[in-house]
């Protein structure tokens, strides 16, 4: 079926007004030999058939609500999403509108994103937030762009901790391949004993940006204050990639002195959705706002004296600054920024604190019980939030296969990214994991041959 609301009679009247005989006559500018190709695609489905077909395909997946008990995180987390969130997102006024270029008739989107910016600055402690990026990885790459622009290309080195999400580091490498940037610290040989300050050996007067993760990819919580002080002494900026759920409990990156705080806000109301779309948040200090990519909403008044909101500092962006812009980004993740805002408002301060506390408590219960199993153990002693590394008596890939055979989606196999950690499993626990589920995991692992 199609969604074309024009009857044959109307079509003929319109063709007459245009002055052509048939629809095909409208396409004479197109080279005749390539005009009207036969497309080899399946025949059209009705809505009823499409709904059934898509449901069939979806049901051939094993999902973490109906089929599998999941302890998998590593950058995408299974959290509870209050019912209100999707009800608000499904309002056509929000999801069928475009970028709020006409503020008189877009105040809904504009105020919602202004509130999103405010929620993110209050969460991270930073001074400004943009209207969002594609995801946590690209937000991190945009932090590199900011630093590059801030130093006007005079500093060209990025120091990345090896415990920043491997895919995020990969994206930074892709993004920066035309910029002549040197990347240091970005390797798969990770020394689990080395603290964050060991990164300083790589930081010099050429360093524009240091990137660390909080909690790090292995779940460890570090206070980066000393590292940031030392990096600042070398003139470098510091970007912290933060998990927003952890920020509900932990001291803010701003209080450690971070210059840029980015991350993946998927945990705030966005479904796992097989990896996207998610929500990259980007916050920084006011002094860097002109080098920040992405859309930005500011408060103002309208001609009637009413408080209102507009896209502001747009001359930074690609449609005006073209090849001199910090980034080519145009689209943000508007609807998902709304999603995060509704999630945070609905749970509110108390509900959010409960989520963070449940994640922390359950992860610690799981860690404690798992480490009691013969052959298993925790491989670091630093404080952690809701993710931790479990040492296994055999390769993590084999442990995961065994768990999967028993209906459990195990943790993330760290050997995929760090060859020396083939027996290490990154385990994530959220409020969605009941004590029963954790006990089941422990019981099944106890029985592993």
């Amino acid at each position, binding site marked *: 079926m199609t969604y074309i609301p024009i009857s044959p009679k109307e079509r003929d009247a319109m063709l007459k007004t245009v002055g052509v005989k048939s629809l095909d006559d409208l396409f004479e500018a197109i080279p005749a030999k390539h005009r009207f190709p036969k497309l080899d695609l399946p025949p059209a489905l009705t809505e009823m058939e499409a709904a059934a077909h898509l449901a069939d395909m979806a049901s051939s997946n094993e999902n973490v609500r109906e089929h599998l008990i999941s302890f998998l995180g590593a950058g995408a987390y299974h959290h509870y999403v209050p019912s209100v969130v999707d009800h608000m997102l499904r309002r056509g006024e929000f999801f069928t509108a475009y970028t709020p270029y006409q503020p008189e008739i877009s105040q809904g989107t504009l105020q919602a994103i202004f509130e999103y910016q405010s929620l993110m600055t209050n969460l991270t402690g930073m001074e400004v937030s943009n209207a969002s990026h594609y995801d946590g990885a690209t937000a991190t790459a945009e932090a590199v762009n900011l630093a590059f622009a801030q130093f006007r290309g005079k500093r060209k080195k990025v120091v990345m901790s090896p415990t920043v999400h491997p895919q995020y580091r990969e994206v930074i490498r892709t993004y920066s391949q035309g910029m002549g940037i040197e990347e240091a610290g970005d390797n798969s040989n990770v020394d689990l004993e080395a603290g964050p300050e060991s990164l300083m050996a790589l930081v010099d007067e050429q360093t524009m940006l240091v990137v660390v993760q909080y909690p790090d990819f292995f779940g460890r919580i570090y206070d980066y204050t000393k590292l940031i002080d030392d990096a600042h002494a070398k003139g470098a900026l510091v970007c912290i990639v933060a998990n927003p759920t952890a920020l509900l409990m*932990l001291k803010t990156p701003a209080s450690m002195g971070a210059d840029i705080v980015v991350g993946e806000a998927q945990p705030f109301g966005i479904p796992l959705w097989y990896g996207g779309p998610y929500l990259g948040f980007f916050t920084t200090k006011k002094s860097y706002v002109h080098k920040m990519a992405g859309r930005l909403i500011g408060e103002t008044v309208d001609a009637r004296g009413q408080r209102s909101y507009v896209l502001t500092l747009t001359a930074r962006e690609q449609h005006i600054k073209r090849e001199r812009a910090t980034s080519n980004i145009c689209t943000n993740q508007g609807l998902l920024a709304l999603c995060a805002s509704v999630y945070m408002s609905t749970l509110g301060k108390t509900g959010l604190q409960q989520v963070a506390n449940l994640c922390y408590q359950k992860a610690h219960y799981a860690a404690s019980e798992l480490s009691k199993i013969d052959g298993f153990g925790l491989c670091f002693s630093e404080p952690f939030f809701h993710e931790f590394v479990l040492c296994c008596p055999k390769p993590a890939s084999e442990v995961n296969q065994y768990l999967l055979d028993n209906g459990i989606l195990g943790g993330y196999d760290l050997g995929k990214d760090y060859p020396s950690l083939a027996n290490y499993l990154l385990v994530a626990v959220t409020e969605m994991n009941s004590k029963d589920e954790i006990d089941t995991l422990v019981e099944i692992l106890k029985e592993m041959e």
Partner: protein
Amino acid sequence: MATIVEPTIFELSSPGRLGVTMPASDVPEVALPPKDLLRSELPLPELAEVDVVRHYTKLSKFNYSVDDGFYPLGSCTMKYNPKINEDTCRLPGYLFTHPLQPVETVQGNLALMFELQDWLKEISGFAGVTLQPAAGAHGEFTGVLMMAAYHKLRGDTKRTKMLIPDAAHGTNPASVGMLGYSVVTIPSDSRGNVDLKALEAACDGTVVGMMLTNPNTLGMFDENIEKVIALVHKCGGLMYGDGANLNALLGIVRPGDLGFDVMHFNLHKTFSVPHGGGGPGSGPVGVSQHLVDFLPSPLVGIIEEGDDDTAPLYGFISPKNSIGRMKAFHGHFGGGLVRAYTYIAMHGPDGLKAISQYAVLNANYLQARLRDTYHIPYDRICMHEFVMEGQFAGSDIRALDIAKRLMDYKFHPPTNYFPLIVHEALMIEPTETENKDTLDRFADALIKIAEEAKTQPDLVKNAPSTTPFGRMDEVKAARELVLCCWLPENYEEMV
């Protein structure tokens, strides 16, 4: 003090008010991390569920959307977003699958992605497609990275210039800027085509390629497209197609057949993924055979062939000379790919062609109805959109005023002041999902506004007057830079 029409969620907050709460913990309690690792306060709003619902419902009513009415925003393809897509993309099998699950457990997702890659190839005439890019601009960046990698692998290191027509979207030069290339602007000729002489003069051994939107932002299909592509190829450059305007070409012509080497799709324009107030989009990229090895990693492929009895096993593959990863995980699966898949499946080959036929008919119909009232600088059969001047001889009414006045007639204004090569541009893209009555009402409104510009210019200059908000003070916003709000200062003492 400004009047507050709707307080922010921070202003609506009240200490101790509860919304959705979480169950009590079912595990033995352990101590929190040391105090110096904890935050001392969490200054976030406290509201009840009903407060939240009323707040966002009220905000939604300040928006104008496709569901509200006609939204002819040029180059944005604001077509109707089918409601069935909202249901299919929320099926539990899609919502609750983790991106790092073993491929054996997500064959439904991978089959959908594999098939969508194939469909997009067939629609566009390309040999390979990546679904990873998150939006059109992200796809452009992906494409330009592949062009750079192609030249680099051939040892062709002298190429540093990208040719871009003067009518191009700003994302084109900005994508090029991210690679440190320089931009050479190619003018348009009097029929709205690429100026062939200027193009020929710019083509040499330093050219990376050309980025061309076709139909371009004037809504014109380049009448010399094959010559343009031949000139770029002759000097060793690659041809990038900006797929922003693909809604004019479905089943009409395949960019790959014309000789384009790379093109991004905007699933949120052509394939009905809703625009979401500015995103998320989805920007897959198609490439011709000689660029397939450079596609981002990973792609969805068949890792174990099937036979008559068993389905193939889908998984991830890495192209040989891949530019790398563009984002975490696999693209905008749920919000982008599932909706686009549903849409294409429901249209089939004939339905897709009808989309473009009617998108073009609607644009030409509006152009014909407005031709006598507004000056159309490039006046020939247009594709899915056209550009007219929003100004009149002897009047100081500008395109901006006309755009604002349209709001009083309950229409979303067209794109204005773009493309830059038309003075006071109004760029109108009706899409195929509007009926004749709507188009007539819109044309009538524009004709009436042209009349008002003569008889009641102040009415037009002060528009809109019937919307909940009037024109904004953009200078104040940029000078004062109030970019976020907080809980009130005496919040804890509030009752």
